[in-house]
């Protein structure tokens, strides 16, 4: 049903924009994090209306289900309170410049001044994405796994339990 799809798209789009705004506007870090979860879920809904079910499931699983839980855990552990807004001057100027550039590129995309990137209409199921990963994009895929492995080894090295004599050596 065409009408329902359109309605779903607009509902999800509006939700995504509102919750993305709330992420920035909220002074309370936990409320910001929850708004970000809302934004991720809305984007996952947008993927669904585009027939990209696999991507949508992964979006919820990875971003909303794992990464944001970790974010929330750290925020709660540090018990951050309301953050004062005291960006230094240079940060404000850089942020403003970046937003203007993004807005400009969005408008030029919408007006059709730049050629839009073409995507294949299939790309929905897990099997198709797996096929592409292990043929056309094998090298970037393996590189990304290597990067993650390095990060993991690094974390283990930093967090491992040290023997008492080692700690003395480090302090000396």
């Amino acid at each position, binding site marked *: 049903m065409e009408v329902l799809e359109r309605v779903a798209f607009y509902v999800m789009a509006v939700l995504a924009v509102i919750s993305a705004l709330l992420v920035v506007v909220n002074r309370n870090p936990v409320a910001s994090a929850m708004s970000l979860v809302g934004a991720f879920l809305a984007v996952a809904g947008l993927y669904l209306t585009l027939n990209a079910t696999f991507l949508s499931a992964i979006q919820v699983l990875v971003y909303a289900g794992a990464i944001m839980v*970790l974010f929330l855990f750290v925020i*709660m552990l540090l018990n951050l309170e309301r953050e004062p807004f005291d960006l230094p001057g240079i940060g404000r100027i850089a942020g403003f410049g970046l937003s203007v550039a993004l807005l400009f590129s969005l408008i030029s995309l919408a007006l059709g001044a730049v050629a839009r990137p073409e995507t294949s209409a299939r790309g929905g199921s897990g099997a198709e994405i797996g096929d592409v990963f292990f043929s056309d994009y094998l090298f970037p895929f393996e590189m990304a796994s290597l990067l993650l492995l390095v990060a993991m080894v690094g974390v283990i090295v930093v967090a491992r339990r040290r023997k008492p004599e080692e700690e003395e050596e480090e302090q000396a």
Partner: protein
Amino acid sequence: MSDTQVYYLAFLVKLLVVFTLAVGLVPILVYAERRVSALMQFRWGPNRVGPFGLLQPFADMVKLLCKEDLVPERASKVLFTIAPALTCIPPFLVMSFIPVAPSFALAGREMKGVVVDSPVGILLLLALSSLTVYGLAIGGWASNSKYSLLGGLRSSAQMISYELAMGISVLAVLCVSGTLNLSEIIYRQTQFFGYDAQSGNWAGWNIFAQPLAFVIFLVAAFAETNRLPFDLPEAESELVGGYHTEYSSMKFSLFFMGEYIGMVGISSVLVVLFLGGWHFPGMNSLGVQPGTLPFTLLGLLVFLAKIGVLLFFFIHVRWTLPRFRYDQLMRIGWKVLLPLALLNVLVTGAVVAGS
């Protein structure tokens, strides 16, 4: 009626059935939990309200509804209010992806026994069950109380740790089934134990092909639903009530409901992935024609019976095992379950690729 109208009507009817089943199981579970615990502790349990105390859950419900709805003065009001709902919504959504019965033909159309038959169903299930943690974590944080905060923190750490082992154990099952669609996973488990005569693939219940994955998933399921021995987020001996210390009335009972529906949901996933869904040995020789409504109802009964056995197991374990210590919980998750699950995937992958 046009095809789309039939589709939406069937969708609504199935949604209603699944929703009623999920909600209807909650009072039964509460009653069963209290009676089974009483049985195990050699006492009577609730036996005053109604015959055999069967009306006790309803009396409890009236009591909870009539209680004062307290919001702590310095709590974050909005988050405090939506947190209980956040624990309830994902388990309900999980239920709509579970194929609870075989499909049947109605006026030339195939009616499926599942509300949403997604090609990536199992991923959606994992995604949804990973969202349950927000209710507990946010509820704990928004209460502005140290016990609640500790409970919320524990729940988020615990969920992240056990989700990994759970997801990877599912991966091995997917290697055997070769599909992400839940209905198809069930259709591959037609026999109790044995191979498919034509293709030579495994066609028995996955629990026999993947016993290790089953155990890992089961343990992770206890952790994900915050049931003993993994109920650290509400450990009453150290944290008063954990994340729901400050909650009262209907908000408290929503947390309660979320836990029980979560149990129903995770048991259904176990049945689908490992216990052959609605299949049962000898079911086809009963004389009921497959593809008809009676067969669908029979399948639904088998499915519910399997869930019932698992739920009894959940309750039984709760009243048998003591609670883990927090460091033990983390050690089991990261140093035992995760390496075992990875090893299982490695071996399964090698066997599947080799055959």
